[in-house]
């Protein structure tokens, strides 16, 4: 079963993602950037779901650190964000995210499609 790292500070969003994704993927949860970077480096997931608005180190900075790390550079990273402003998709893709999912999550199919598109072929 593929392993997904979920980096999300809101407990209710982690609970939701576990409910939606838990049957198909092993989820490893982090509620802050420092723990996430440490955990991802030692227990490399197949894909990262990364909240943008985290306290302290935000999602964009975490992504930049992942992309600067030779061992993690190619890791697929999907932005999870409650931002919903025009141009956000382009902004986050330009920043180096592989895809972008908005919260609240309305369509679980959209989430599954993004994950399956980016997971390494098995």
């Amino acid at each position, binding site marked *: 079963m593929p392993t997904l790292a979920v980096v999300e500070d809101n407990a209710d*969003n982690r609970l939701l993602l576990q409910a939606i994704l838990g049957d198909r993927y092993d989820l490893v949860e982090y509620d802050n950037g420092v723990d996430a970077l440490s955990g991802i480096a030692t227990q490399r997931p197949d894909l990262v779901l990364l909240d943008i608005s985290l306290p302290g180190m935000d999602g964009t900075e975490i992504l930049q650190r992942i992309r600067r790390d030779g061992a993690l550079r190619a890791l697929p990273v999907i932005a999870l964000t409650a931002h919903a402003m025009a141009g956000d998709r382009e902004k986050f893709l330009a920043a180096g995210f592989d895809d972008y999912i908005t919260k609240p*999550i309305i369509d679980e199919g959209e989430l599954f499609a993004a994950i399956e598109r980016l997971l390494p072929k098995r």
Partner: protein
Amino acid sequence: MRDQAGQTAIVDEAAVERLKGFGGVKLVRGMVELFVQNAPVRASEAREAFDCGDAAALRAALHALKSSAGQLGASSVYAACIAGEELASRGELGPCAMHLQRIETDLPLVCEHLEHIRADSVA
């Protein structure tokens, strides 16, 4: 979303049904418990930030409340968070007052309604 009396529903039942589809009543109970526990704290943080003139803290508190409210279908709270967060991100604190007031008025009603939903799901 309007109810049978033509009033704007305090919680959009379709959102709750969607959550049931994602993870059954267990997920709804868990989400409601976390919301009822955390949302009033976020609202208090937003009020404190507003009173202190701290736009960044206000934006952060409203942002955190926003996604939870949206996921549970607390439509008026969600809309007020969106509007307030956008204003706070531009440093426009004054107009945030009406959105904060909306949150403070509606959030107790939302929590009460969600508690009923949670109780019904246990029964």
